[in-house]
């Protein structure tokens, strides 16, 4: 029955199935997971005529090389991604934010993301994936989600069901903008840090470390001095929470984060800036800007409206 599939010639660095993620499991230790850059995830689905929360393939830095077998299908890639389509007699240079057709035997080579981390591949059909707690999102630490909770691997096959045969080409004019400052709300342990430490946090630049992944982003830079206690009683964490352990280097919690942590929370990245934050590559400089709760709420409304607008243009 499953006659439409990709053969994975090269898996890429961190290629996983994702969707909107799973809710209401923090209390047993399971985070949201889901696509890191939610806007680009939703747009990729809309560009192939799917519901915005369909499973997609997320890749980081180097994407997969996929050979397609089956009936004609369409796909779209979002993010800032370099890719080519190799057909029998020709090679096509790919463009993000538009749909392309694939025929039996074509190869899709997702070469790399440009100065960004994550890209998204959606197809005009359904990836044949299993769900856990109503989500296919892969959490490789707990081995939860599609593909036995593991990254996509070299040599495996990715099956596709229910190809949409009435597909018409789609396109969106959109450029991913970079963000100058990451806006944060003061954390619940803000007063654990010295005046100098607080000043450093909001005024100095930090560099994103190579030890960053879907769980967290480690930063390096001037040390933030703690004057109360370098531990707190372990308590809940959220996406975007910035913890400062005893070594003074901040860690930002990302979508696969641990649900509980014991380091003081100096701040929380606002919801409006999360999609942009996760796209910052190791080695990039990052600066924090303080905002109040009311501003953060307004900024999120604007960001969400903009996302809905983009989706409705497709």
């Amino acid at each position, binding site marked *: 029955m499953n006659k439409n599939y990709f053969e994975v010639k090269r898996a890429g660095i961190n290629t996983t199935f994702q969707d909107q993620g799973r*809710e*209401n*499991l*923090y*209390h*047993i*230790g*399971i985070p*949201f997971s889901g696509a890191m850059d939610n806007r680009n995830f939703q747009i990729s689905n809309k560009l192939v005529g799917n519901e915005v929360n369909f499973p997609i393939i997320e890749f980081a830095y180097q994407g997969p090389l996929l050979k397609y077998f089956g009936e004609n299908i369409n796909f779209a890639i979002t993010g800032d991604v370099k890719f080519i389509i190799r057909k029998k007699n020709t090679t096509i240079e790919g463009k993000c934010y538009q749909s392309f057709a694939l025929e039996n035997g074509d190869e899709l080579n997702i070469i790399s993301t440009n100065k960004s981390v994550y890209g998204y591949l959606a197809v005009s059909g359904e990836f044949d994936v299993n769900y*856990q*707690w109503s989500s296919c999102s892969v*959490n490789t*630490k*707990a*081995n*939860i989600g599609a593909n036995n*909770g593991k990254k996509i691997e070299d040599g495996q096959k990715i099956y596709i069901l229910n190809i949409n045969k009435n597909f018409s080409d789609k396109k969106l004019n959109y450029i991913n903008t970079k963000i100058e400052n990451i806006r944060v*709300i003061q*954390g*619940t342990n803000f007063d654990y840090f010295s005046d100098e430490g607080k000043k450093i946090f909001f005024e100095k630049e930090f560099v994103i470390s190579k*030890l960053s992944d879907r*769980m*967290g982003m480690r930063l390096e830079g001037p040390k933030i001095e703690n004057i109360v206690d*370098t*531990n707190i*009683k*372990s*308590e*809940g*964490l*959220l996406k*975007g*929470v910035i913890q400062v*352990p*005893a*070594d003074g280097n901040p860690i930002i919690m990302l979508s696969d984060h*641990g*649900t*509980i*942590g*014991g380091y003081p*929370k100096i701040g*929380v*990245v*606002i*919801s409006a800036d999360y999609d942009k934050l996760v796209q910052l590559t190791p080695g990039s400089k990052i600066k924090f800007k303080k905002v109040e*709760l009311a501003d*953060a*709420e307004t900024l*999120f409304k604007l960001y*969400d409206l903009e996302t809905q607008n983009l989706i409705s243009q497709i």
Partner: protein
Amino acid sequence: MIKNISNLGDAALYCDFGPEVNKEINSKVIRYFKSIQKENIDGINNLTPSYNKLIISFDLRKKNFQTIKKLIENLNITNDDELETNRIKIPVCCDENFSLDIKRLEEKLQITRDKIYEKFFGKEFFCYMTGFIAGMPFLGDLENELQAKRLETPRVKVPKGSVGLTEQFANVYTFESPGGWNIIGNTPKVIFDSTNENNPNLINPGDVVTFEQITKEQYYNNNE
């Protein structure tokens, strides 16, 4: 009973039950958690009970801090239900390949490893919460002589099954994960099973856990 409600970022309530960490306060947190869970409030997408805090996350598209705060403040929480308790035994091997921080602990605590094991094994510990990674139990209370701080820089990888100590608590790493607890041994027992969606955790808040020391041979003969 909640001493103070503040915001943690723009999409969560941070409910503080006071500075103390003990079973009484924790049981209140767990009762609040269970009551709010039962209410099934539209827009709330996660609840994280811990020792003395309850974090309530919500979908900022549907709700905001003020609306959820009002809802929570107006809830009628009952304190009558007894918390469910299971008694669970966890085998642990302290072979040197597993007890990654035992030397560090001997120095920090100024007691020998035999003394550390004597004060740890066979004692009853209460499960305050689960999380950090899937299914990890936070168990207490350790005696004063066993209480040490976390590692200054957390490990990037703590092996699956590691049993760790920090302050008055013990835990088990259900998966390989980053972490900063002082590791004294390793258990072969499966603590988290994701294929059991209705009941994935072996140990749940309110349960009572006892650790039992096993040999390397017993560890590798364990069929799990």
